[in-house]
């Protein structure tokens, strides 16, 4: 046993020495990295670690944090029914809008890729605009207004499908589908842009080689040539759409109200904002954030292993 330990230690020491030597040779690299690394540690790594630490405490900002172990997590999962509604809604939104938005982003980027340049740039603008339009999505609150002045109600009544206006954003039955619609509308974001840029960079000679080798139609070309060339962008798009799908809160809060009827449109992040910035139970809020974070990492791992199989 002792021998093994000693061997292990010497091996580790040797490895550390090699790493140190390598690092010494690459001094320039660390100089280049330093400004970013320092700021990143200060404003991203440390706060994340701190919030994981706070999740094991009772912390209300005024008093110093008091350690209470797993209490926050236990009450979250066993006692907080609203949190479970939030988890259900978030998962539902993520499972539907995440993959759909991702596929839409790639499909449209790929379709407009072969258009002439000026048409393409207009198309990119049209598709990308909703995601950078600030809080333009509140216009959907006007379209789906609950009285007869709302466009959707007015139209449905004119066609005689319904005779009394539907309270779209108050009735729990319709809230989530409408929110999903809005989220899908906004989902052609940074991932889409990355796809457009990436598709332009695919080497043309590969397509010509593909014709020679008997690529029959556009779908084969997509699977065997375009997608494998796009792997880095596909990964990026995946991370973006996961982040987007799990962090939904603005849309549901501004469209359905905060809190919404029967908490029917509550998401995990909305729950977090409720506890973090309204009830000042920071420890509890941090526990919510940590759970969300774990869910996102697991999801990301699963998708990355899926994407590795593309084009094979």
């Amino acid at each position, binding site marked *: 046993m002792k021998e093994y330990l000693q061997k292990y230690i010497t091996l580790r020491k040797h490895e550390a020495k090699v790493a140190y030597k390598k690092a010494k040779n690459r001094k320039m690299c660390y100089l*280049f990295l330093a400004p970013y690394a320092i700021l990143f540690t200060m404003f991203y790594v440390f706060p994340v670690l701190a919030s994981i630490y706070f999740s094991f405490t009772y912390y209300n900002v005024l008093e110093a944090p008091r350690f209470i172990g797993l209490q926050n997590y236990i009450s979250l999962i066993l006692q907080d029914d609203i949190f479970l509604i939030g988890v259900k809604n978030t998962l539902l939104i993520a499972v539907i809008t995440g993959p759909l938005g991702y596929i839409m982003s790639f499909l449209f980027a790929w379709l407009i890729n072969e258009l002439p340049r000026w048409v393409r740039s207009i198309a990119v603008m049209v598709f990308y605009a909703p995601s950078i*339009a600030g809080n333009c999505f509140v216009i959907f609150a006007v*379209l789906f207004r609950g009285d007869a002045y709302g466009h959707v109600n007015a139209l449905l009544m004119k066609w005689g499908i319904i005779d009394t206006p539907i309270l779209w954003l108050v009735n729990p039955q319709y809230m989530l589908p409408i929110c999903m619609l809005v989220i899908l509308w906004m989902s052609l974001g940074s991932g889409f842009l990355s796809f457009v840029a990436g598709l332009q960079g695919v080497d043309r000679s590969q397509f010509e080689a593909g014709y020679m080798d008997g690529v029959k*139609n556009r779908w084969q070309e997509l699977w065997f040539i375009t997608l494998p060339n796009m792997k880095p962008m596909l990964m990026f798009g995946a991370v973006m759409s996961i982040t987007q799908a799990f*962090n939904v809160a603005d849309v549901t809060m501004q469209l359905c109200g905060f809190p919404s009827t029967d908490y029917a449109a509550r998401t995990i992040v909305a729950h977090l904002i409720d506890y973090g910035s309204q009830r000042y139970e920071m420890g509890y809020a941090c526990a919510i954030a940590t759970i969300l974070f774990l869910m996102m990492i697991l999801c990301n791992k699963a998708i990355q292993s899926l994407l590795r199989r593309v084009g094979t």
Partner: protein
Amino acid sequence: MSRENTKKKLKKEEKEQVYRKKLIKKRKPNRSIWGDFFLYLFLILVALIMAFPIIYAVSSALKPLDELFKFPPTILPKHPTLDNFSDLFVTMGKSWVTFSRYLFNTAFITFVGTFGHLIIASMAAFVLAKYEFPGNQTFFKLVTVAMMFTGYVTQIPNYIILNKLGWIDSYWAIIIPAFASPMGLFLMKQFMEGLPTSLIEAAKIDGANEWKVFSGIVMPNVKPAWMTLIIFSVQALWNNRASTFIYSEEKKTLVFALQQIQSGGIARTGQGAAVLVVVMIVPILIFVFSQSQILETMASSGLKD
């Protein structure tokens, strides 16, 4: 007579054939016409649906007040006016912090934040993408993980740090954290990995040091990525309401002031619609102008390994 006619016909046919050849050459050989037709029809339909809410937002900002509350509701204004916008300026003029001050705040934060972010993030991305050194992979993994963490909870530890540094209630509270945004680094690194390593090696053989390789060879070749990074950064900073870290009214951003007006209830419906347009028009305009540059640089930067 008839001979001339036939000659003309022949010439016409020749012309047409050349024209057809061009068309055929442009199309990729493995595409079916019906597939093209349906896919593009689908594309046009979706584009119309996507554009509708934005068009509607603009049109309701141009509606006079009586048309905003008309029944049945209309989509396009009958008598378009700019009254809502001029009302908005009147309201902005009444507040004790002037409009130009809000504009300066936003412009300063956006410009400095984006510029610093571009330089710092691409320096880090360059070494992460093109060199191997201990800690390389780990650091990059950390960055990707950090990209997913919601900004809401890190706000509290962030506030504590900024407070210790004495940056609360100053522009730096927004600008400095924006320098380290993980998004930009991730994007830049992914694009730089596509650069052929031989390019860098060639420069090194010619005697360039790391800084020269970075500023003279890598950066000019990843201009499209610059633009993308600038767009993201500007968009995030423009929409940053800065309400948690900055509490003096004279240091708040334009978007914050505008959305304050928007939440003024039913009497401000017209102005609210105008705010919506003002807030969204700036990122969209920036995008329109930089997009043409992206496509241009993409076309001229034909790198072949």
